[in-house]
């Protein structure tokens, strides 16, 4: 579980850092207007919020990647009764054990 969490959280963290640097270098956040008003008043706030927005987007993407990685065996009903399932099978306990 820990490793899956790392897989979901960590790559987006790296990418968000790079994306935030690139984005805020190209655009001064104070010049981003929403209905004629600056969207965010402080630059440090904008960099911070920008970083977390990028991170959240990346997390969503990584979660979907992990979700779609599940093979057919993990999605379909298992033909074996639980106690006959091989050791290590995520379905050996019950449906909660998967992922």
């Amino acid at each position, binding site marked *: *579980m*820990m*490793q*899956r969490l*790392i897989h979901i959280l*960590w790559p987006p963290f*790296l990418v968000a850092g790079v994306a935030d640097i690139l984005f805020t*270098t*190209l655009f*001064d956040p104070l010049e981003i207007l929403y209905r004629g008003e600056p969207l965010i008043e*402080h*630059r*440090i*706030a904008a*960099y*911070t919020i920008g970083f977390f927005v990028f991170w959240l987007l990346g997390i969503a993407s990584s979660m979907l990647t992990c979700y779609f990685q599940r093979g057919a065996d993990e999605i379909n*009903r*298992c033909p074996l*009764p*639980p*106690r006959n399932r091989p*050791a*290590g099978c*995520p*379905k*050996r*306990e*019950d*449906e909660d*054990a998967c992922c």
Partner: protein
Amino acid sequence: MTDDKQATPASADAPIEQQLYAIRQKIQPRAVHGVFANWRIALVLLTQAVYYGLPWLQWDNRQAVLFDLAARKFYIFGLVFWPQDFVYLTGLLILSALALFLFTAVAGRLWCGYVCPQTVYTELFMWVEEWLEGDHLARKKLDKSPWNANKLRRRGLKHLAWIVLALWTGFTFVGYFTPIQTLGAEAASLSLGPWETFWILFYGFATWGNAGFMREQVCKYMCPYARFQSVMFDSDTLTVTYDSSIGEPRGPRSKKTDYKAAGLGTCIDCNVCVQVCPTGIDIRNGLQYECIGCAACIDGCDQIMDKMGYPRGLIRYTTENVVKGKYPDAGIIKHVLRPRTLIYTVLLALIAGAFVYSLATRVPLRVDVVRDRAALSKETDEGMIENVYRLQLINMDGQPHRYTISAQGIDDLEVAAARETTAAPFQTIDIPVSLIADPEELKGRSIEVTFTIQATDDPRIRDEVATKFFNR
């Protein structure tokens, strides 16, 4: 999902989980002394003296190194960089990457073993751990012992010390991005801004978590460099290597035994190399991606070899080709020069040269032009065509300057407003400028024009920007 639901005892979870994801065994490495441990101590002290000390250094009445995010200016000693200077940051990153490639090709993961912040902070945190909880055996005992007053006190003290260290690290980190003296005064009077507070806590938390708990897992599962460093390796790269040709067959023996006569190698199978390894691997199984090249096993093994009266170097920095017997250890130096390292060196030298040249000849003036979008062009009372622009001028120099503004591209083009302007040191100014041209001289719908901004006191300080002049 299944018809046959059977309750399984909770204890059955553990072995199954272990097979799915290798559950991390907490590693309590044994402390080690020796040449490479001393190198690491020296480099931990050096890098941290720089890291914690640099933000406090002053230069021209300002912080010497300050990446002032709020003002979008980076100060590095005498130099000041704007977002427009992004190319220098890119250059610096390319230089760092090439240097890393070169070092890796020559001597493996020197970066990981001695200066990577993950290694350095883990080392610092382990010093605290050793000081407050004792050596690896005492720590293992403490891990197993039930929670009592002693454990609570030791653990509490350790975490207190860790948290102080982590918070100081976080504070220093934020001090690179916002003036640290102000930050210090604010921290002392408990009036830190919300964003500064957040980042100090966030970075402090990351330090505490990574150096206190994650440790080698960061290297094994999170570090991209650990995954691709092996592509820089070849058979002439120095790596921490167990020389099986002298070590095997391994086995315990008494010190008095003539091991050669007994048909044994010099490895006494004492497992010290495994006990000292911060990533918990057995180097005798050969080069592994988990090995961060810290050389703790070399120090550990050399101590044992000394005790046994055997020659040192059963585990040592050596190359694959030496172990294969292609050349002796003395030949390593000669093999440092090879196409791979030469290419890295030449690339590094070229880019470093271009970087320094570009910095040295940098003109401390930058002008951008923005067209007034509301009105492309208008006709004046005299029947002339006028275009209005906004010039954004950055004086990147430490001196104030006076500039003249001229424009070329159309015959008899006249700069109407603001033919001259001044800017204070490191000041960015916005100036509206209007150009007036005779419609008879205008050929076509839009004509390319160039603004020239020239400092009055220094002919080298000039910048040109191109833009368009629109006819009616």
